[in-house]
């Protein structure tokens, strides 16, 4: 009996294995209808005959690669179009291009830990700090010299190596309502104090000073991140940045930043629903011509608002400074940027794809669909209303996004927590500073 129980256990285990194998065979049949559904994976076989000539001209590229991104719909569609064109010109190439939306970061962390990365992937602002050890340096590429000099330091490590092809860039600063500022008879604010004065004037007339869609905790965090540029990063009188990097930063210096958010809230300059407002409502609310300022890196909002109401004309300006003597800057960083996995089996093909993406007409397409500035020289995208402002401030320095450079990885979620809590009145300024300090020290040790 005892022996037979043993053999039963063995059979049970064997059944699990066998059933697993049964699952394998089941999948092959179910692959067929599923594969039909994929649009991007369609191989360009059908075009083979048509493009026979161009095939002779170009290199005989072959292979199947995976490209992933977290791009939004417009950017994804633009890049997808370009890649499909590439596949038509190179019939032996099959590209699977997918967007993973908001789960992208989680997914990439698991894939990094398993050293199983896509051949080409978007680095969403982290090409140097997080992904560089998995990426192939791209300084030897023909398009390298085309990267905008004012932007280059955003994607460069200490040795001057660049790991991505940046297509467009984020430019964070101040959005202001042109019509309302004229009505109030004021200029674009240069300092935070001027901004508060204008908010006070606007408040008397019933306008919202600064608009925040705080249901998404990234919004208040982004305000802190952008404001940190002038409060901490670009200071003439203090060297906070190197202190932040070497760990000797006195966190009491963060107090004015938390205080700024609390002041805006308590003085009634923020929209009443600043804690509950959804991000989808930003452009519609801007179009109601009731909002004076936004502190954001999404300059495309200007276009979106004017589409909804042509009368809602917004302009873009650099981040307000702490005092008059300070230099004006924009906060900036990579947006859609692609790097090549260093262990890819199709390195040559991947580099060709990047070369193709870097063509001025392709970069232009991506910039226009995303409403963002080009990160490469010689591209002049039509960015509508905001194009004028981009030209006007072309010489203003684009300073790298604060948290990506000076805070340890993981602090972004702390900033999201304190931003929401400060706005909701759940945390005092002192508590927020303490939280930042504690998390900074813990994360520094971990990293």
């Amino acid at each position, binding site marked *: *009996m*005892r022996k*037979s*129980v043993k053999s*039963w*256990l063995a*059979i*049970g*285990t064997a*059944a*699990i294995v066998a*059933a*697993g194998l*049964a*699952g*394998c065979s*089941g*999948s092959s049949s*179910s*692959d067929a*209808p*599923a*594969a*039909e*559904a*994929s*649009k*991007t*994976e369609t191989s360009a076989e059908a075009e083979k005959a048509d493009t026979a000539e161009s095939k002779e001209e170009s290199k005989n590229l072959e292979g199947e690669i995976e490209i*992933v991104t*977290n791009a*939004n*719909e417009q950017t994804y569609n633009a890049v997808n179009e370009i890649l499909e064109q590439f596949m038509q010109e190179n019939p032996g190439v099959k590209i*699977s291009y*997918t*967007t*993973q*939306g*908001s*789960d992208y970061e*989680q*997914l990439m962390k*698991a*894939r990094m*830990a*398993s050293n*199983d990365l896509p051949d080409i992937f978007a680095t969403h602002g982290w090409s140097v700090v997080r992904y560089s050890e998995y990426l192939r340096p791209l300084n030897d590429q023909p398009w390298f010299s085309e990267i905008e000099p004012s932007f280059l330091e955003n994607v460069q490590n200490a040795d001057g190596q660049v790991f991505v092809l940046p297509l467009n860039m984020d430019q964070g600063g101040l959005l202001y309502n042109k019509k309302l500022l004229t009505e109030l008879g004021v200029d674009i604010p240069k300092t935070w104090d001027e901004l508060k004065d204008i908010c006070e004037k606007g408040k008397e007339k019933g306008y919202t000073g600064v608009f925040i869609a705080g249901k998404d905790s990234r919004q208040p965090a982004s305000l802190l991140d952008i404001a940190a540029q002038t409060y901490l990063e670009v200071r003439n009188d203090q060297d906070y940045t190197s202190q932040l990097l070497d760990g000797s930063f006195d966190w009491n210096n963060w107090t004015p930043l938390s205080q700024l958010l609390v002041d805006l809230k308590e003085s009634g300059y923020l929209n009443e629903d600043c804690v509950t407002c*959804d*991000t*989808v*409502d930003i452009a*519609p609310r801007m179009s109601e011509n009731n909002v004076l300022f936004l502190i954001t890196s999404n300059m495309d909002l200007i276009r979106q608002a004017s589409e909804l109401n042509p009368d809602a004309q917004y302009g873009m300006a650099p981040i307000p400074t702490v005092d008059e003597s300070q230099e004006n800057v924009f906060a900036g960083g990579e947006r859609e940027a692609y790097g090549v996995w260093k262990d890819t089996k199709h390195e040559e093909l991947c580099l060709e794809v990047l070369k193709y993406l870097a063509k001025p007409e392709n970069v232009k397409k991506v910039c226009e669909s995303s409403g963002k500035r080009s990160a490469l020289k010689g591209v002049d995208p039509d960015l509508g209303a905001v194009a004028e402002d981009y030209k006007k401030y072309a010489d203003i320095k684009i300073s790298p996004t604060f948290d990506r450079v000076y805070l340890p990885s993981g602090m972004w979620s702390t900033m999201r927590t304190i931003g929401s809590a400060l706005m909701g009145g759940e945390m005092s300024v002192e508590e927020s500073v303490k939280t930042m300090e504690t998390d900074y020290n813990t994360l520094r040790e971990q990293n």
Partner: protein
Amino acid sequence: MKKKDRTWLQTLVALLIIALHITPFYIMVNMSLKELSDRSSRWMPALHPYFQNYPTAIEHGNLLSAMWNTWIIAFLSVIIIVVAGAMAAYPLARKTSRRNRIILTLIVGVMMVPQLSILVPLYKEMVSLKGINHLWGIVIVSATFHLPMAIYMYSNFIKSIPKDLDEAAMIDGCSMMQSFFYVILPCLKSTTVSVIILNGVGIWNDYQFQLYFLQKPAMRTITLAISTFFTDSKQDLGAAAAAAFIVVLPPVMAYIFLQKYFVKGAMDSAVK
């Protein structure tokens, strides 16, 4: 009069409970009929129904392929869970030696391990097995994670079946395998229904594992397809609600028509 009052109260409570249960469905259907630009409250009925969300949900979300994938995954996983679970539970329940008790405790212990805590090594393993983006990969993972509960349930129920049944079968000339398939397994019908419902629903609703193991758009399951409507820059609640409405229809229909079997299954397993 008193009795009448009580009936009235009961009806009221029942109606309240119904209202509570119907609320999420109401909001789902209501939102699926609103345009993205409609910023009215979610409770406010859609006065001008906007049906375009449905074609968007089906085309943009690739819903039909997602439903097919989910169905295949749930079906294959549940088969493995039922067959392997019942077979593994049989000897563990029949021979209650110390070693078997330890094995059973270990199996139950596995249920306590949070799925995400072992994600990275599991993902690594599946990469080396080339199981990423294949249905068989996710089927193995889902089945493995749901097996402990099935084994636990089956072994408990098998314990309640008198051993005499096995012995009688053996006296009549059955081998152990035959007595399991011909005598014990038919007694486990009600448990099997519970196992199918619990695990089937769990796998149908799974999101985390499917997110990691099925990254290609063609492989997306229902939960992943619906999540594509929520991105950093756009939250298309209308299309997501329409998609959710379409995908809950088949299970809801199945439940309505097969209700008596479900209830019976759950009741029987409770009594046993």
